[in-house]
């Protein structure tokens, strides 16, 4: 871009510096104008990226919480079945050694089948968690800096070629430093915008798959909650009848452990109620997804919800272990 007109030269000289005038005008027309547009658009891109990051995080946390729930539900099944078959054996359910052999064989087979199913389900969940982790990583991919650097390098190379063609090492660069910086920044913003669109496209494309998987995860969570709750409910009921009511109703002195038993019962009841509530986490996830597709983006409460679920599973696990130890007469 060269100015050859005499008037123009005079005007430029009158203002002080011809080069800076050129640079400013070119910068405004060539870079600043699109820069403004891109800046406006980059707001939308940032939202899309944020949304994808959130979906990735929530999905990953949910899949991990479900895996934990599956493991706990399995452990709870084993503890319950073993305690029950022990009682059945003592009660005389299996008369002959053959009966006992058959009973334990069947019990192990049932538990093995369940174990395999939980493992398969966890394996499939891991693949889903992998997808959500990749989605989060893809959204977090900060390509703007890389594109800024690459464009800067490209501009330098163009300048080098220009100088080489002119065969003059002292020749002025075709693209000034200010233009180089502005161009690099512009390319970074454009890259961010394009990335935001790519992320939005991924979310739109995978929305049916995510929706279906969330529905399946809700069912899994319901199943695991039922496994845990049904067992703990029955155990608690029996515990209440035998260790809380019976000793109290009887005329004999209350045993020393009675207070502790009542406390244990109350703790168990509270956990049971929490598990029942935790079942709703799946439905809340589905509601979140529906709201998310409708444009809502706040998920902070949901992540906290899932973290609470993980804590609850841990509490249930601790309670189950303590109860099993107490039943077996082990010191706590």
């Amino acid at each position, binding site marked *: 871009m060269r100015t050859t007109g005499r008037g123009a030269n005079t005007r430029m000289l009158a203002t002080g510096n011809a080069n800076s005038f050129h640079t400013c005008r070119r910068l405004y027309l060539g870079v600043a104008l699109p820069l403004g547009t891109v800046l406006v658009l980059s707001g939308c891109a940032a939202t899309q990226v944020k949304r994808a990051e959130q979906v990735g995080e929530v999905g990953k946390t949910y899949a991990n919480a479900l895996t934990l729930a599956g493991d706990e539900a399995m452990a709870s099944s084993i503890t319950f079945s073993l305690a029950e078959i022990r009682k059945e054996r003592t009660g005389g359910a299996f008369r002959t050694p053959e009966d006992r052999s058959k009973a334990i064989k069947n019990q192990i087979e049932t538990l093995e089948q369940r174990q395999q*199913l939980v493992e398969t389900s966890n394996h499939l969940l891991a693949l889903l968690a992998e997808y959500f982790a990749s989605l989060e990583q893809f959204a977090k991919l900060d390509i703007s800096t890389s594109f800024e650097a690459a464009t800067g390098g*490209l501009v330098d190379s163009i300048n080098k070629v220009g100088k080489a063609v002119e065969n003059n090492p002292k020749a002025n660069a075709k693209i000034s430093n200010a233009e180089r910086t502005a161009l690099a920044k512009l390319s970074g913003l454009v890259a961010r915008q394009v990335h935001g669109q790519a992320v939005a496209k991924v979310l739109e*494309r995978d929305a049916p798959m995510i929706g279906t998987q969330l529905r399946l995860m809700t069912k899994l969570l319901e199943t695991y909650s039922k496994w845990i709750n049904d067992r703990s409910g029955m155990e608690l009921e029996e515990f209440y009848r035998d260790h809380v009511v019976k000793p109290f109703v009887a005329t004999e002195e209350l045993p020393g452990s009675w207070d502790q038993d009542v406390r244990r019962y109350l703790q168990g009841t509270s956990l049971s109620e929490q598990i029942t509530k935790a079942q709703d986490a799946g439905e809340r996830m589905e509601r979140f997804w529906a709201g998310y597709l409708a444009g809502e983006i706040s998920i902070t409460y949901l992540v906290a919800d899932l973290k609470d679920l993980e804590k609850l599973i841990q509490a249930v696990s601790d309670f189950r272990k303590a109860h099993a130890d107490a039943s077996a007469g082990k010191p706590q």
Partner: protein
Amino acid sequence: MKAKAMKTKMTKTKVMKTKRKKRAAKPVEPGTKVVKTTGKMRAAMPAMPVAPGTEVDLEKLRESALKTYESLRNAEKDDFTQEQKEEYWRNRHLARTAWELAENAAFANLVEEQKRRLPEVAASNARLAKDAQATADALAVMNLVSASLGVLAEVITLLGRVVPI
């Protein structure tokens, strides 16, 4: 001419009869759009969904087995004779086994559904990896062009020294 007309009439009647027969064999509700399915279309159709009611049936089975087991657990057994007690524990064992198997069956159905949906997850995973690769490729191309231009500049400079323009 008359004979030809008769023949055409007969053929038409035959065709109509055959059509009627076909309709009678496969009744179609009024207003239903009939689409003939070709082999290709059938191949493109997604896997048959679980027969309606299967999931519900399994859940009902689980519920009823659980209720039976719970009622046995709650039974008052203090007044039972030794024989009755043994009978009680046998029944309780059978009820628990039935409940656990019903739970397994319902869960197996759910895991089967998860497996059926696995290709969708795998495809999404693959597409996402492709997208990430495309971004990396775009960046690599930029760097490559930049490096190539740098080399070109060096070559031109070198040539300028060897062959004065």
